[in-house]
């Protein structure tokens, strides 16, 4: 069985934010919810690095471990999905997640948390029929069922964001590192500007 993962090559990411746009458009993500975000470290300084983060689909997912209603499940592809029918909006997954992936709509009175929303790896929901209208409105698209990878990675212009089976994408990444000669700065600032 494949184990689907994301891998962001920080030496290639140019902070174009296209992955976020792709995600929002493909999954009709509501206003205020960001399933994916790009963080730039040392922004504006020579040597700045950007990295795109979303749910990491952990093998031993902390969100899954602390959920009081046990509404998370891991698919056979290793994608961590969460059932919005069962979710009670307690926020525990958000406390547990190291990456800040779980998002909560705050459109109820006093900003009380609604049902959690997070990256589905473009694999829809755990309980809805693949590609159904219900799935579309609740979780967004199900590209995995169509044999496609998440759109954020598919349309990454520099191929910094890799998605796919963990073995394959780590091989791709390793071969890139070998080609760079082990020097992380071959790409980017120091080769372009000599710093």
């Amino acid at each position: 069985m494949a184990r689907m993962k994301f891998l962001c090559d920080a030496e290639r990411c140019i902070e174009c934010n296209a992955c976020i746009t792709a995600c929002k458009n493909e999954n009709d993500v509501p206003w205020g919810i960001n399933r994916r975000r790009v963080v730039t470290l040392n922004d504006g300084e020579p040597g700045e690095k950007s990295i795109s983060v979303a749910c990491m689909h952990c093998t031993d997912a902390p969100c899954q471990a602390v959920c009081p209603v046990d509404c998370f499940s891991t698919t056979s592809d290793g994608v961590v999905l969460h059932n919005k029918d069962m979710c009670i909006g307690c926020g525990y997954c958000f406390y547990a997640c190291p990456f800040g992936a779980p998002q909560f709509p705050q459109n109820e009175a006093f900003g009380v948390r609604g049902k959690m929303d997070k990256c589905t790896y473009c694999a829809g929901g755990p309980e809805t029929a693949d590609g159904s209208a219900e799935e579309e409105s609740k979780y967004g698209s199900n590209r995995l069922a169509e044999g496609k990878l998440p759109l954020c990675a598919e349309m990454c212009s520099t191929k910094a964001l890799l998605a796919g089976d963990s073995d394959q994408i780590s091989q791709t990444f390793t071969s890139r590192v070998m080609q760079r000669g082990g020097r992380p700065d071959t790409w980017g600032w120091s080769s372009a500007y000599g710093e």
Partner: protein
Amino acid sequence: MLNSENNTTDEGSRRKRRNRRILWTFVAMWMIVVLAPIPGYFMTTDTVQAKGEFTDNPRSAYWGEIRQGGSGYTTDRAPEAGNLVNDSGELWRVLRNDTISPYGAWLIAFILVAVAGYFMFAGPMKVEGELSGTKIKRWNLYDRCIHWIVAVTFFVMSISGLILLYGRAVLIPLFGREGFAGLAMFCKDVHDLLGIPFAVALVMMILPWLKDNMFRSEDAEWLAKSGGMFDGSHPSSGKNNAGEKIWFWLLTIGGTVLIVSGVILVMPNLEPLRNTMITMHILHSVSGLILIAVSLGHTYMGSIGVEGAFNGMVTGEVDTAWAKQHHDLWYAEQMGEEAPAKAKKSAKSSSGPAGLSTGKVSAS
């Protein structure tokens, strides 16, 4: 003879020389083997140092900092969105799942067993001698209303809180995940909403009851005798005995922690930091579990544990015999009598007609 002598000395010195030659050859070979690669080491170190970047990965410190919780710039406007990794949730996960949950369950089980054991072996505390048939006012209408509002909201929130903490382990095997999710949703809403009346009622209960719950000199003796729980004695006590005072202060401190942490947990609009929410959740669950455990003891004492105590909180009146036995100083104060000799010092001087006016005595 001479010749042969010469021969032997000649041969001896030749053998000695040969041995020495062999020894030196070995030493030379050993030196070459050991020392020859050393200049090579110097040379490689030189080349690596000349290139500089090979000695250390310049990114290692960079990513190490991120791992420790460093943050950067992001267009995401959510609080702490620039923070890439915050692993304090791992500690919270261990504390909640492996520490607070099991020890909380053990604490509650321990209190339940202790109370049940005490009831079975010692039985309820009865009023000694005959009831006088005369009633004395102990709790006025306000006291009783506020007590039961706090009690009912606390009870419902205890049950819903316990369901949210232990439901996954206990109830999901019974109801299934879908069935339990509906119950959990209901419990969460009830827990969130009842927090408001609980908070208001708790403050309205604590403030007027403060003065009767200040520790006084007779409380030390009461505590030393465990309130007569094990020796059948009746140590002196004012309106509230030391046990009730400890429960009052536990509820005051624990209740304040529960209210403050609960508001922060239920209001993400306040935009608390993730670590703040994690800390608040730990405080909330620990103080909640402790209060639930102690409240079991209070519920026992106020219902089947002490005869007459429950009626006192329902009708507001207690029998004078009950009052004399359990709260002698308070009874004396109410009756305007001289306090019993053993606790004269601690008895208040407010005895007299003023005491009678607050404690109405009525024959029933």
